[in-house]
């Protein structure tokens, strides 16, 4: 594009003899391109500066801190990879990582699968009044802070909260309990809060993707005698590759990097059953004053997220081509 623009601009100046010679024209084009490049870099500079100072520099510092033992006040001592070895050794930290992976089931798999199923069933009347009202309602969990979702659900899960009330009403009073305080149910209960938050977004994203599929494909399939299942696996699922990749990416990051919901609803308890890396970093750095250890866990978390998310992007790109 550069060439075309500059070419046209210099063509307009052809009447000035000094610029007419090939040598000077080439020089003019080069100067113009340099000037444009310089201007462009100048325009990128403020954004780049903010990004470098408040993201890249702290990121590099996290890596640097992770090789030291430091309490934030006195001299730090070099400990090499000890902090990383401790992540594998100490059950508190390795457990927090395992918990985060378990949360993926709730934050990601449940909303995506349930979203696919619901979107597929309501595809036929995606433009009806009911479906339009449902857009507003299903988006509510997306716009409130996660902290608010945490507070709401802590109350629903309480021993006299709505969850137990409903269970008693349908004759399952026997399983009623304080869901967030129970060793066996705390993690799934916290996970379902995440599922509640993500479900609406996933469903609507997938539904939007489904409405882009050519209806003629479905008609043809029905005429060929394909049932709803065949239809779903042969047409819907392959066309939704990109949307599914997006849903999974967003929700997996939310699971691995969860903090707000856990901080509010369980503080990691009971007995570290719901402890996640985000909360453990916070505890280590600001309560135990183990800056090096917190940083090592932070670096491990960043690496894990990249490791899980990058392969998903490949799926996304293949879907494009």
């Amino acid at each position: 594009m550069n060439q075309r623009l500059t070419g046209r601009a210099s063509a307009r100046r052809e009447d000035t003899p000094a610029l007419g010679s090939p040598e000077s024209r080439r020089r003019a084009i080069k100067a113009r391109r340099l000037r444009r490049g310089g201007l462009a870099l100048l325009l990128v500079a403020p954004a780049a500066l903010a990004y470098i100072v408040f993201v890249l520099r702290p990121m590099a510092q996290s890596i640097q801190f992770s090789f030291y033992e430091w309490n934030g006040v006195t001299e730090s001592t070099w400990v090499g990879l000890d902090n990383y070895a401790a992540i594998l050794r100490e059950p508190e930290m390795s457990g927090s990582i395992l918990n985060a992976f378990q949360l993926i089931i709730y934050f990601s798999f449940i909303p995506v699968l349930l979203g696919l199923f619901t979107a597929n069933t309501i595809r036929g009347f995606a433009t009806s009044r009911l479906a339009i009202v449902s857009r507003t309602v299903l988006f509510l969990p997306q716009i409130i802070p996660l902290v608010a979702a945490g507070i709401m659900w802590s109350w629903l899960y309480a021993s006299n909260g709505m969850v137990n009330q409903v269970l008693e009403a349908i004759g399952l009073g026997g399983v009623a309990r304080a869901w967030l305080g129970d060793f066996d149910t705390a993690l799934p209960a916290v996970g379902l809060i995440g599922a509640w938050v993500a479900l609406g977004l996933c469903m609507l994203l997938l539904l939007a993707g489904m409405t882009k599929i050519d209806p003629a494909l479905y008609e043809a399939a029905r005429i060929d005698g394909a049932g709803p299942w065949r239809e779903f696996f042969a047409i819907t699922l392959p066309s939704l590759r990109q949307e599914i990749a997006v849903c999974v990416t967003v929700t997996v990051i939310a699971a691995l990097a969860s903090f707000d919901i856990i901080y509010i609803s369980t503080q990691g308890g009971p007995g570290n059953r719901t402890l996640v890396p985000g909360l453990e970093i916070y505890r280590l750095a600001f309560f135990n004053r183990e800056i090096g250890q917190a940083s090592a866990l932070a670096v491990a978390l960043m690496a894990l997220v990249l490791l899980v998310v990058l392969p998903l992007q490949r799926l996304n790109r293949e879907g494009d081509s």
Partner: protein
Amino acid sequence: MIVSRRETWLGRTMLILLMAVTILPFISLFVTALHPSGTYPSGLEWPESPQWSNFVDAFKVADMGTLLWSSFLIEIAVVPVSLFIATLAGFALGHLRPPGARIILVAFVLGLTLPREGVIVPLYYQMRDLGLLNTRWAIILPLIGLYMPFAVYWMRAHFVNMPEDISEAARIDGASTWQMFWRVHVPLSMPALSSLAILLFLWTWNQFLLAVVLVSDPAQRTMAGALGAFQGQWGTDIPLLCAGSLLILAPTLIVFLVFQRQFVSALLQGSLKG
């Protein structure tokens, strides 16, 4: 499209069920907020005499006026600045394409997946050294930096898709790059800009981690951060906590209901591009 009756009914039932699951927590919060303060009611039960005064009490104890003002100040600093510098960068990378644009873009995109917990510890010490801990600047400055990957990526994607004839026409009319940017490209970018503004507004309002770590005074925090502090202080008084939570949610809910079409499309596009 051929859709059988049975399928339609199944779909409608599922959708209504899903809406019920989404909205019941809000209703439970609301009816609980109407119970006498200090009692321990059941999850879903209409009180004998609704205590509307709970909302007034919660407004007072949570110091809602101050909280709203604080969130407003943070928003007014973060959103316009982020929009402005991200638009400049997006225009440069998507339209002017200087040498090295590709590498710069990749560097920004790398930050898209970054969990905030990964940088929170160094940010704390950075803010301490700058003497900004416990001020709103400790939330404002890092947030602008943290938004850059998404915002620059978003604006670049917009400018890349702008037809080139537009700027060519402007250039023939003798417009400089700067004039072209302000007179032609920015006005044409309003839809992309307003969607981005909605997303940044929402993310700032709901920002929790930075508020909790970097600012200990709730009156200097974002709304979500203040809500965390409110829970810590009044967590045992369930009706009051519910009333306070609803009050803190109210501004976003109102803004959402007014601009719901823009919100829904911004969030859907936002996650597709992110």
